[in-house]
């Protein structure tokens, strides 16, 4: 049988096929979107990409808060008179059709004057006439065509985000000056003593001086600041010899042209700063679609519905919720504060918090924790805490979230620069003393020449280019690393801690075992067909596990929220659900079970086990040779036996860990000298990810959510974790080799400097040559390294 797929969203629509205009749709939502587009001549949408759409979600009442003035004020970047401009984040943006339809919004509503998509950031910037159309209307329009914007508490902050482009400006200035200075200094390299040149060389020299002023005082400013800070805290970081080099270059060159001693080293000076900034620029690899800084604010809604004392519904800003407030939580809405369930059937999905995808049902009077998502119908709850004091959000008051991990971490470059600086200074002093004794007129010349030629440009470039290139290679392999120092930290790790749920288990698939009386073939058909009608996650999972059966139509089907489902077909009656619903008593409480009875006879139960990611045992066996392995789980011990079978025996298994416990566990081990790599996924790991030396968030879909971390690893690449760590270690070796290479250049240069024959042309050749050979060497070496990661084992 041919699979039918929806014309709009591409989903499988065998079960619920709707035909319209000779096209198949999986649901009415998709069909409606198609109708809107075809009525407004926007069917080009489907020409650019096949099935580009998304199913529009139920949004009744969800955006009522957008009519509040203070919220509109915060969400719009421009709000004056009749014009408002808002930038909305739309996760669904994924193809050229999306860009096309969103930039043609004015065809759907003529009061939207302009809309511009930023594909990388997945945002659309909409300008509209606020007298005729409101922000709420705009958001609703987007939602009806399947592009529901994602508005979170994170958007609720004043002021525009400041984009820091100073590095590009600095790079531009340094590059501009470098080019011009090269061009001005070229004549003097060769035509020494030529008549016309003699006449105009002063003009050329002063022009070079003018060009290098912004380079030293603006583009190179950071090196002086960093060197000053380093010296202040008694650290000889790499920026100390660099700043010294830049300063000496500039002062000596200026002195040379003032006293007409020579043409100075302005070419080397501007070149040095330009190459250094280029390295800095290359090291920055930003993933516009990813964020490494998320906290709970990115998950939480801006406002929810409050039920006032008179019984009216009104939107309330989440920060304004006070203890005792009654809140209305609709289907698919997030619970913003801890509270008590008053009314309604709650099925809470805590997957944001724990990574566990199975929903938990709650009865009225039960406690609900902030961060859960209601998945069935409307509930009413009473807040017992404010947002910041809720169980989950309290975690963010821990100091660990205000610490910068890079502080107190000595990079390889800085470690070597300490010895390097001392060595260079000693050579400079010895050489100067020697020349003072033999030819005092040359002493100052030699002293400055040593400092100029020993300026560790090549050393400073080794790490940025190696790590920068590796960051890009990792990015292509779906391992997104925040910055270069993370790779260096990763190479030094000696303990690896994993979260269980969602990290080593996969979210999508579970396995289930059946225990009890064997089901007959007709009973299995009935079971499968009953499950087909239910949208409960457990039903869906079980449906996928069971063998394919032919489709029968049920005479009767009923779903009891929070209990189970029952159905009849040809006098056969089936009940699927919780133990009490089916009519038996629960024996084991640790694992999730689904019980079955037919015609009021208890048959048996399906017990769900976590399904572990592919290659888990193999990965652990590779890792156990070099690292201490720990599993820190927030769950109960239900999976203990399973895990013991799968993992190497020395793996520590620790259960029932609260978010704070995880953080403390890591802190304790770090105090004993462990360098910890934490691999987690949910918000409950956020503290542990921040405390660890390297925190990697594992994500099934990198475009969606991940807590604040140092790196994001696509779940499909989980089994390659060991390779990434190995590659980081190799990268350190590459850097050490390039250090050796740059020392060779330094020794050659020092020969010229110490013997007092450093001509500007020698410096101008040696410096770029050493920098370029380092760049070439590190790029080739890391590319080979990248190929090795990619190889199949």
């Amino acid at each position, binding site marked *: 049988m041919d699979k039918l797929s929806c014309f709009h969203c591409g989903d499988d629509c065998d079960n619920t096929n709707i035909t319209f205009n000779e096209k198949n749709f999986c649901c009415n939502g998709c069909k*409606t979107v198609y109708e809107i587009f075809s009525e407004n001549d926007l069917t080009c949408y489907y020409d650019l990409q096949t099935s580009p759409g998304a199913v529009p979600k139920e949004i009744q009442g969800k955006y009522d808060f957008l009519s509040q003035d203070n919220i509109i004020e915060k969400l719009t970047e421009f709000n004056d008179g009749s014009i408002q401009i808002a930038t909305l984040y739309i996760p669904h943006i994924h193809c050229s059709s999306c860009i096309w339809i969103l930039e043609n919004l004015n065809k759907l509503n003529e009061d939207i004057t302009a809309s511009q998509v930023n594909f990388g950031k997945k945002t659309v910037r909409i300008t509209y006439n606020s007298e005729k159309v409101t922000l709420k209307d705009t958001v609703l329009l987007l939602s009806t065509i399947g592009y529901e914007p994602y508005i979170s508490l994170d958007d609720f902050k004043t002021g525009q985000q400041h*984009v820091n482009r100073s590095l590009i*400006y600095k790079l531009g200035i340094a590059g501009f000056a470098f080019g011009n200075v090269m061009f001005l200094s070229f004549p003097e390299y060769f035509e020494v003593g030529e008549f016309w040149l003699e006449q105009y060389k002063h*003009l050329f020299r002063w022009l070079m001086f003018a060009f290098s002023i912004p380079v030293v005082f603006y583009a190179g400013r950071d090196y002086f600041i960093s060197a000053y800070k380093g010296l202040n805290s008694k650290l000889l970081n790499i920026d100390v010899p660099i700043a010294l080099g830049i300063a000496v270059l500039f002062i000596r060159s200026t002195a040379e042209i003032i006293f007409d001693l020579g043409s100075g080293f302005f070419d080397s000076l501007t070149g040095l700063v330009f190459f250094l900034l280029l390295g800095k620029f290359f090291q920055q690899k930003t993933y516009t679609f990813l964020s490494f800084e998320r906290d709970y604010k990115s998950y939480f809604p801006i406002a929810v519905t409050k039920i006032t004392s008179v019984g009216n519904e009104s939107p309330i800003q989440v920060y304004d919720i006070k203890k005792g407030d009654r809140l209305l939580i609709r289907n698919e809405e997030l619970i913003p504060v801890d509270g008590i369930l008053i009314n309604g059937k709650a099925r809470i999905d805590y997957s944001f918090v724990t990574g566990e995808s199975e929903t938990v049902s709650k009865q009225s009077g039960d406690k609900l924790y902030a961060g859960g998502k209601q998945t069935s119908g409307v509930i009413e709850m009473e807040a017992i805490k404010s947002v910041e004091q809720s169980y989950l959000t309290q975690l963010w008051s821990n100091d660990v979230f205000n610490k910068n991990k890079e502080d107190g971490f000595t990079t390889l470059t800085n470690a070597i620069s300490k010895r390097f600086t001392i060595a260079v200074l000693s050579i400079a002093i010895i050489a100067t003393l020697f020349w003072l004794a033999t030819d005092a007129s040359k002493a100052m010349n030699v002293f400055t020449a040593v400092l100029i030629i020993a300026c560790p440009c090549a050393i400073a470039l080794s790490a940025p280019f190696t790590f920068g290139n590796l960051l890009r290679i990792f990015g292509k392999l779906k391992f997104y690393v925040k910055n270069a120092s993370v790779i260096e930290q990763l190479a030094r790790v000696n303990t690896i801690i994993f979260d269980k749920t969602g990290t080593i288990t996969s979210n999508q698939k579970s396995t289930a075992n059946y225990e009890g009386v064997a089901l007959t073939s007709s009973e299995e058909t009935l079971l499968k067909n009953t499950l087909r009608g239910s949208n409960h996650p457990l039903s869906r999972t079980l449906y996928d596990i069971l063998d394919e059966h032919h489709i029968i139509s049920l005479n009767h089907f009923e779903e009891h929220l929070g209990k189970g489902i029952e159905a009849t077909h040809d006098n056969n009656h089936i009940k699927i659900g919780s133990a009490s619903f089916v009519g038996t008593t629960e024996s084991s409480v640790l694992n999730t079970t689904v019980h079955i009875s037919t015609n009021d006879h208890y048959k048996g139960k399906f017990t769900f086990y976590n399904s572990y990611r592919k290659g888990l045992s193999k990965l652990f066996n590779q890792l156990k040779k070099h690292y201490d392995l720990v599993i820190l789980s927030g769950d109960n011990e239900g999976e203990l036996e399973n895990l013991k079978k799968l993992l190497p025996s020395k793996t520590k298994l620790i259960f029932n860990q609260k978010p704070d416990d995880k953080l403390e566990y890591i802190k304790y081990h770090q105090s004993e000298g462990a360098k910890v790599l934490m691999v987690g996924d949910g918000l409950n790991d956020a503290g542990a990810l921040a405390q660890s030396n390297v925190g990697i968030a594992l994500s099934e879909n990198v475009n969606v959510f991940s807590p604040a971390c140092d790196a994001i690893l696509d779940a499909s690449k989980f089994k390659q974790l060991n390779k990434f760590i190995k590659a980081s270690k190799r990268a350190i070796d590459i850097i050490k080799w390039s250090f050796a290479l740059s020392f060779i250049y330094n020794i050659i240069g020092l020969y010229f400097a110490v013997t007092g024959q450093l001509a500007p042309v020698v410096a101008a050749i040696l410096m770029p040559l050493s920098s370029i050979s380092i760049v070439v060497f590190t790029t080739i070496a890391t590319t080979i390294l990248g190929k090795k990661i990619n190889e199949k084992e």
Partner: protein
Amino acid sequence: MSVIYILLSISIVVAIVFFIAFITAVKKGQYDDSYTPSVRMLFDDELVKEQPKPSIKIKKTN
């Protein structure tokens, strides 16, 4: 040979003009999104093909 003063000033002025153009381009955010414009330019044909359709209808899904 004093024409070199004019030539030098012209060359530097031209260089500075381009440099300022680069800085303003960065400042205005032209380099912030380097992907979308490459896709957008391919749409221009479709945008012209607008048919007169006075009434714009939108059906509510809910």
